[in-house]
């Protein structure tokens, strides 16, 4: 039955400022003296407390008015304060994903210059690139920010699965399409020849029409379900904005309504 605690809880969502602190003190004293008055009239302390709290109504309306200006002052700051939400474990995971992304750039490049094979390059890119991209996606979705709540890890996994399917389909389709290359005439050619060959891949189109079919098949099998899953997830997405953002939005709507709507 701590009045102070109760009041603090009621205004927990509001930025503390001198005016709000002042109001909280005034309200605390009001409730305290009200309870004392009721007890003096013969009410027991517990019901007096409950009555006094009941009589308050919705004092957050007042806090809205007092807290408003302050909130706008820290508005930009609140948007920027993402750093507070990144824990040491999370930052380590971000760095790890960054390292894997680095490998996903360097290793395929090395493979490309060493062998000049598109297939081999993509094959090397596949595990590292996917791990890095999906890792960043997962961490990003689960990242709580100043304006947004974190997504649940279960839902984030579904997103990762969708993205993984799309990415896997595209990369494997690449490998399937250029699969002919290893037995094609460019195999013995130099790096530049292969590069030109890759650029004008339409030559391959005639040579390896079966691989085009294969590539499309792979795309259909993996990427299509991935896209479908992704669309489903995006359509069923809930608004994860934080309560203060929603309030801010409502206020702006109200303001726009009052000032710009024709009545």
């Amino acid at each position, binding site marked *: 039955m701590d009045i102070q605690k109760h009041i603090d809880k009621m205004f927990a969502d509001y930025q503390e400022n001198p005016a709000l602190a002042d*109001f909280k003190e*005034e309200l605390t*004293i009001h409730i305290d003296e009200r309870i004392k008055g009721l007890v003096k009239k013969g009410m027991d302390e517990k019901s007096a407390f409950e009555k006094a709290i009941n009589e308050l109504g919705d*004092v957050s309306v*007042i806090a809205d008015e007092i807290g408003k200006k302050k909130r706008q002052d820290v508005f930009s700051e609140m948007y920027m304060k993402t750093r507070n939400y990144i824990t040491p474990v999370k930052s380590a995971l971000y760095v790890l994903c960054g390292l894997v992304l680095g490998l996903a750039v360097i290793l395929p490049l090395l493979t490309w210059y060493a062998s000049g094979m598109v297939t081999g390059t993509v094959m090397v890119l596949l595990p590292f690139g996917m791990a890095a991209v999906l890792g960043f996606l997962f961490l990003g979705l689960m990242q709580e920010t100043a304006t947004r709540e974190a997504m649940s890890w279960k839902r984030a996994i579904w997103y990762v699965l969708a993205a993984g399917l799309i990415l896997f389909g595209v990369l494997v389709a690449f490998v399937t399409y250029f699969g002919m290359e290893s037995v094609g005439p460019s195999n013995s050619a130099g790096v530049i020849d292969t590069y030109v060959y890759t650029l004008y891949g339409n030559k391959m189109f005639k040579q390896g029409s079966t691989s085009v079919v294969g590539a499309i098949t792979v795309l259909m099998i993996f990427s299509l379900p991935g896209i479908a899953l992704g669309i489903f997830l995006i359509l069923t997405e809930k608004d994860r904005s934080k309560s203060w953002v929603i309030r801010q939005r409502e206020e702006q709507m109200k303001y726009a309504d009052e000032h710009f709507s024709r009545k």
Partner: protein
Amino acid sequence: MEPKLSSDLLRGHTDTIVLAMLMNADRYGLEIYNRILSRTDEQYELKVDTLYSSYKRLEKEGCIMSYWGNETQGARRKYYHITDKGRIVYHQNMLDWEFTQKILSNLLKEEK
């Protein structure tokens, strides 16, 4: 039939009620609250948010001022003081109310 107090009707006049309470003395929040309760025979279920919203509004409009009292014993109290503008607003509201009351009574009468 028992008559019942229309809290809604009273709520619409909170600002004027507060100004009326301050016409002759500076008072603190709970004091005004208690006076309203006792003068309505505890019939009016006045919510604290209604009253304090009114204080904040009146203060913003310049009708009242507030200051912390320097109690030597007991809790600190925040007093409200009516300004000249507040007095003018009060008199205007009273005129408005008397005028409106006449018209309203007339409107509510059974037609013959």
